[in-house]
């Protein structure tokens, strides 16, 4: 399933379709706790195998080349650290490609959200760990965090 990450343009479109579908179901989702709980499971089912999702609850995949920044051992959300190895691998896990080297290469292939890699992302709200990023997006929580940060 990780192979999907080599097709960021495809994933980007999948992301857009998911967003449209979720937005249409917004009234239903925000009303029902049960649906919200089932969304957590659905997210885990999809995002874990494809992105190695860590369930931070604040998904920014479209800002980071459809590459999960939480898989960076330093959890960096704003770009690569200065420790990237000559071969493009991680300072901390020498056998792993740097998450941000991948993120950058992939974002260049994304026509819609690719340039969003330049946005300065807010620090994580650690209270949202384990919650559904989809619900947090629909409820406006994500927007509030980023707006307060950018203000």
């Amino acid at each position: 399933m990780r192979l999907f990450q080599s097709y960021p343009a495809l994933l980007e479109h999948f992301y857009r379709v998911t967003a449209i579908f979720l937005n249409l179901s917004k009234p239903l989702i925000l009303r029902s706790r049960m649906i919200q709980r089932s969304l957590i499971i659905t997210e885990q089912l999809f995002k874990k195998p494809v992105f190695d999702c860590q369930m931070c609850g604040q998904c920014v995949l479209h800002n980071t080349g459809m590459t999960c920044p939480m898989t960076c051992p330093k959890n960096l959300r704003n770009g690569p650290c200065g420790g990237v190895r000559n071969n493009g691998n991680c300072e901390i896990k020498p056998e792993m490609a740097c998450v941000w080297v991948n993120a950058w290469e992939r974002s260049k292939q994304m026509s819609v959200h690719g340039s969003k890699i330049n946005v300065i992302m807010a620090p994580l709200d650690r209270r949202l760990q384990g919650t559904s990023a989809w619900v947090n997006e629909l409820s406006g929580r994500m927007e509030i965090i980023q707006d307060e940060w950018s203000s």
Partner: protein
Amino acid sequence: MSGQAEGQSRLERVLRSGRIAVTAELNPPDSASPDSVYENALVLATLCDAINTTDAAGANVHMSSFATSALLSKAGYEPVMQMSCRDRNRIAIQGDLLGASALGIKNILCLTGDGVQAGDHPDAKPVFDLDSITLLKTAKRMKEKGTFLSGRKLDTNPQLFLGAAANPFVPPFDFRPLRLKKKIDAGAQFIQTQYCFNVARLKAYMQEVNDMGLTDKVFVLIGVGPLKSAKSAEWIRSNVPGVVIPDVVIKRLKGAQSQANEGKKICLEIIEEVLEIKGVSGVHVMAYRQEELVAELITESGILNSRTEKY
């Protein structure tokens, strides 16, 4: 009453005056005595505009950067306090920023920090609650808006001159200038780079950075330092995260009669070359626990010859 702590940092004044600035690194001791801090500072002080105190560099424990900077500030020296996100969360960081300003520490170098695996406590918990960019923006907010991240108001804003690191020598090369822009947007006023042993790469990077207009907004100091021997160069490049030493440099060291002298010579050549690059405001000289060698290098480079007054 809301207000702002007084005064611009000396480093900021030197950079704004257009002079070539020199900063040097002081490695905090494994000691509870301030003596070696003062001894090393004495060696460096007359030769540089500011002294960086490293924050558990390479994730090895030493006296804290904050305490070392406070000692320097108290003794009348000009510190650049390096602050990494590896060991403290946003609560500790914001408290330390206030404390630093209160103690007269105005230059802060905002870093993400090396991973704990690189150091002597690989079993430690890495924090990384913020990263270098969110740390910069947090400090900028405190300084300019006078609020904590939570929005709570400060009584007195800290007076800070904010710095960040850049590493033009590691991938992804074409993203590095954009990352620098992010750091400037987040609040960086000066940059100190990782060790430069590849001037061609630096030139390509600076060209892009100049084209983007970034050097109008930020002062760039290039990291330089002497290599002791080919063996130590090889050790550094395989053990210190982010330091790239090309094979040709190691070959040159190996072929030299005195490797230490050759290392110094290479460093002096690099200093000369980088100062000619457009957009470079100075150098940042580093040599782990060899403060006297740093002093020698600065003297021999002749950078300070044009100075008529000391800052």
